[in-house]
């Protein structure tokens, strides 16, 4: 297991695309969580986020601001990470090279998942650190309170963010295993996350009650509910308190485990062609 973990870590750290994903994630988070709302506050542009006010970008809101992107756009980046990590093995035909060294598929899979979960935690921590820096700068410039959330809230926030990031990453892993590649898995994953979820929430759920009820069991609305429960603004895409935070955490954990288990079963069962 350690050998596989260590091998997967080399692949993760030395792949330029992964660093690009992290950079894009941080840039998007910084831009849409701090820069644009603050610019709206200062300039009064009248845009949709201008009314959030200064309070929203201060350190006290660090938890909600740091995990608010994970239900949709940061979630999409985590799906891409999962798909690239596993789908690349199919795309480059490297499964056969790896498994010819020691063909315990589940051991290799476990090593890959462990590394991806470390990556998911790293992304979440990077969000918190970047958000902390941005909010402290804004608070200092505006002579506002530098008070941070309590340590307990920070730990819960990081844990919730890790759960959200891990769930979407495992969704990408499952798609890559099922579709044995990158392109289709990436396309379908993003269509689900960016289009289908929104269509269900904005068009179908208001018209059909059973879809509104079914939403409460889907990963996206539960991700939005967990973020909302921890202080993410309701004007953030995908953030909506459909269910309570506790229920959302349980459902998301079930999805995380379900995606990983189905992926493992399929990888073990299928021939490597």
């Amino acid at each position, binding site marked *: 297991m350690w*050998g*596989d973990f*260590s*091998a997967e870590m*080399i*692949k993760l750290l*030395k*792949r*330029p*695309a992964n660093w690009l994903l992290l950079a894009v994630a941080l840039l998007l988070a910084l831009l849409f969580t701090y820069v644009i709302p603050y610019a709206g506050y200062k300039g009064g542009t009248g845009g949709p986020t201008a009314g959030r006010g200064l309070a929203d970008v201060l350190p006290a809101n660090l938890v909600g601001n740091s995990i608010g992107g994970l239900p949709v756009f940061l979630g999409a980046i985590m799906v891409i990470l999962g798909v690239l990590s596993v789908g*690349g093995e199919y795309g*480059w*035909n*490297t*499964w*056969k*090279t*790896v*498994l*010819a*060294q*020691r*063909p*315990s598929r589940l051991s*290799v899979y476990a090593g890959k998942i462990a590394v991806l979960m470390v990556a998911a935690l790293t992304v979440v921590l990077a969000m918190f650190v970047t958000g902390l820096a941005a909010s402290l700068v804004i608070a200092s410039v505006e002579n506002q309170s530098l008070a941070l959330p309590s340590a307990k809230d920070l730990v819960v926030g990081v844990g919730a963010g890790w759960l959200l990031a891990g769930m979407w990453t495992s969704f990408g892993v499952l798609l890559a295993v099922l579709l044995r590649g990158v392109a289709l898995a990436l396309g379908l994953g993003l269509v689900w996350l960016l289009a289908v979820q929104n269509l269900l929430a904005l068009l179908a759920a208001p018209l059909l009650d059973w879809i509104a009820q079914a939403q409460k069991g889907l990963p996206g609305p539960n991700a939005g509910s967990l973020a909302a429960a921890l202080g993410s603004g309701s004007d953030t895409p995908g953030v909506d308190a459909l269910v309570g935070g506790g229920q959302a955490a349980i459902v998301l954990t079930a999805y995380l485990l379900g995606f990983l288990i189905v992926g493992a079963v399929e990888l073990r069962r299928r*021939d*490597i*062609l």
Partner: protein
Amino acid sequence: MEPIVTRGLTKRYGELAAVADLDLNVRAGEVYGFLGPNGAGKTTTLRMLLGLIRPTAGEIRLYGRPPGELRDVGALIEGPAFYPYLSGRDNLRVMARHARVSDRRVDVVLDMVDLTGRSHDRYANYSLGMKQRLGVAAALLKDPRLLILDEPTNGLDPAGMADMRAMVRQLGADGRTVLISSHLLGEVEQICDRVGVLAHGCLVSEGTVSDLRGTADLRVVATPLDKAAAYARDLLGADAVSLADGGLRLTVAPERAAEINASLVSAGLRVSEVRMVERDLEQAFFELTGGESRVG
């Protein structure tokens, strides 16, 4: 303990039998050539040996054990496949960790395949020959007793093919058992101790290259040819005589050349040529595989 034994090995995809009831024996220390036309089932067989594909039926024993950790086995299947964004060395470091061998072994195998000088280059920038050599290096990481190489000279230029052949010969000479599939009959002839021929998923022949060729024939040129043919048929039987390239082709032991020459001369025929003709390996291959012209 034989490195590879299969019994009744079968792989079906629906109605299609990619490999059917295959009994294979590869002996310790030999270089075994695996021949067959494209689609004959060679790569499917090799993938089953490595546990990448599950057989529909039959059993596999590698050194007496079912395919498992492949501790004594190294393989290069259907061309090299590595991570293009990593260097050759980093690719081998990744594989070494999966194989549970130390990074020191990476230096050893890089040296064995003469890639040390280019080991820090990205894999994506390697030539095909370098990629193939890196594939062999990965197969050697565990210092395996059994090496499975699936068409290792595919796509190489003549110099690269010669290098690869020399490497395989050297690996065989070092006491390793090598199972190699190749699309070049001449190559198999040069480096293999024994050959198995696969057609339509079945092993149609197994033996040394000489066994595969069968016995040599005699070529006789005599005049008049029609009388010589009639006389030879009386002497050897109709099945043993055929006309070929303006002469006779006699399916008899070459040791009988002098006797047959004397008989023809004493019958009043003028004999201008009597020589042994070895059966071409390619011809033997085509006969065994039902005349399929592509080898792969």
